[in-house]
C-alpha cells in the first residue's frame, strides 16, 4: 500500500534516525514531499510511504511508539474556475480525468472525487489556476 502522512516531531524524536529505521526494519519506500524542521529541531515531515500492508502498519506504529504524531495528509487540489482561461492544457496531463475536456464544448471541468493529487497538472497551468494545499497544523510548528 501507499499513502501520504504527516509526522509531527518534537526535538527528542528528531535525534533518532527514523527514516533509516523505517527503511531498514520495515522495508518501506519513503519519498519526502515536504519538511520543515526549525532550529530547535521541532517540526514536521510530509512523506509518502510505500510497502506491504503489514509492514506499513508496523512502521506507522513504530513512529507512534516514539511519540511522533502521525496523521493522514490532507492534501487537496483546488481548481479556481474564475482564474482558469479554459485552455485545456492541464487535462492532457491528468491521469485520472479529474481534469477533463468536454469535447463538444472544449470546456474544462474538475472533479475533485477523481483527483489522486498526483500533481501532474500543477506545472502546466499558465494561469496558476490549479493549486495544491497541504493541511499542516499551525500549533506544532
Amino acid at each position: 500500500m501507499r499513502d501520504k502522512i504527516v509526522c509531527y516531531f518534537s526535538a527528542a524524536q528528531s535525534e533518532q534516525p527514523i527514516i533509516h529505521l523505517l527503511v531498514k526494519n520495515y522495508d518501506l519506500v519513503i519519498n519526502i514531499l515536504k519538511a520543515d524542521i526549525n532550529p530547535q529541531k521541532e517540526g514536521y515531515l510530509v512523506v509518502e510511504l510505500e510497502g506491504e500492508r503489514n509492514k506499513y502498519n508496523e512502521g506507522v506504529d513504530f513512529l507512534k511508539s516514539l511519540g511522533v504524531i502521525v496523521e493522514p495528509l490532507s492534501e487537496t487540489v483546488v481548481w479556481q474556475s474564475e482564474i482558469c482561461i479554459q485552455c485545456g492544457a492541464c487535462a492532457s496531463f491528468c491521469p485520472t480525468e479529474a481534469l477533463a475536456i468536454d469535447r463538444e464544448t472544449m470546456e474544462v471541468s474538475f472533479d475533485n472525487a477523481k483527483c489522486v493529487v498526483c500533481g501532474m497538472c500543477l506545472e502546466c497551468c499558465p494561469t496558476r489556476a490549479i493549486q495544491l494545499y497541504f493541511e499542516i497544523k499551525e500549533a506544532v510548528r
Partner: protein
Amino acid sequence: MQKTYEEINEKIRRGEAVVVTAEEVIDIVAEKGMEKAAREIDVVTTGTFGPMCSSGAFINFGHSRPRIKMKKVWLNGVEAYSGIAAVDAYIGAAQLPETDPENKVFPGRFTYGGGHVIQDLVAGKDIHLEAIAYGTDCYPNKKVDTVITINDLNEAYLFNPRNAYQNYNCAVNLGDRTLYTYMGILKPNMGNASYSSAGQLSPLMNDPYYKTIGLGTRIFLGGGIGYVTWNGTQHHPNVPRGENGVPLTPAGTLAVIGDLKQMNPYWLVGLSYIGYGATIAVGIGIPIPILNEEILYYTTVKDEDIYCPVVDYFEGYPYGKAIDLGKVNYRDLKSGRVTINGRQVITTPQSSYPRARKIAQTLKEWIQKGTFELTCPVAGIPSAEANIEFKSIPDRSPNGITIKR
C-alpha cells in the same frame, strides 16, 4: 451578388444585419447553399484567445513635478522601454522583473511579468511606478517612486506587433527529456502534441487571403474595440496553401492597436509558462463582411480541412533541423488524440477554444445591437502573391568591419 460595407453598416444601424459566428456559418451554408446564404448573411464573426508574446502597451505617465525625462522605468518591478519621449514607455508582455530567478533553478516559474502588469493595469489595480533619470535643464527630476492606477495615465494603449497567427505548428518532443517551451510542457518520446490555434474560429483562417482584413479593420480586442494597423511581424503569406486557401504552415500575422482603458482583464490575462517565461493571453475577434460568395466560402472552413505541420521541439525547431513529421488537422487535434508517424499521441491545447467561441459570440451581439459597425480597410496587407523572404540573423564577424556611426 455583391454587397458593400456601407450597405452592411446601413443594416447594422437599422438592427437588421444577419450576423453569425464562424462556427454557425458552416451548417447554414451546408443547408442553404452558398448563393442563398451569401445573400442572407451580412457578417461572420471570428475569435481567438491564446498566448501572444508579441504584445504590449504604450503608456504616457504625465509629468512629475519637477519634470522628468525617464531613462529607465519599472511597473511593479518590470521594466518598460523608455527610449522614447520623456514620460512615454512601452511595457512588453514577455518582460520579466530584474529580480526574477529565470531558469537558474530549472524549470523557472516566471510568476510575474509584463503580461501580468498589463492585466493588473486593466483591472484598475495599484501599480508601483519607479523611474530614474540623469536630469536636464528642462527635465531636472531624477527619480520617481509612487503608486499609480490606469486612471492616472494620460494614454495607455495596447499595441501588439504580432497577434492572431494564421495557423501554427503542432509541437512534439522527439528527445528523451521533458521540454519546457512556449508551447507548454512537451513530454519526452512524443508523449504529447501541443497546438495553439482556434482553427475554424480563428480570424485569419476565415479570410485566408486577407480580402476583407486590412489596415483600419475594426476588431474586438481585449474585451474592447481595437483596429488592425499593419501586417504583424514575421508576416509570411507566401507559403504553401491548401485548396481552400488556408496556409499549411504558420503564415499571416496582424499588428493591432486599441485603448487599454476600455478593455477588460478577463480578455487580457498574464501567463506564466514554466521553464519558458511570462506572456499574455489576448482575446481578438474580427468581423468578416460577407461582400460576396467567395468571401462567404472562405468563412465556411472546417477544423478537418485545416492542417498544420508537426514540428519537433527537441532539435527540429531550436536548431533548425528539417525533420518531416507530417501534418495533422484541427478536428483530430481537438478530439484529444492525433496519429503521428503511425502512433497515437495525446494532444495538449494552448489556445482557449471556449473563449474564442465566446469572443465570436460577443462580437456577434455587439453588431446585432448596432454598437459595432464595420470599417472598410484603407489599405491591404501583403497576401499570397507577395514575395516575402523569411530572413534570419546573418552570421558575420564584426572583426575587421568598420561600422560608421
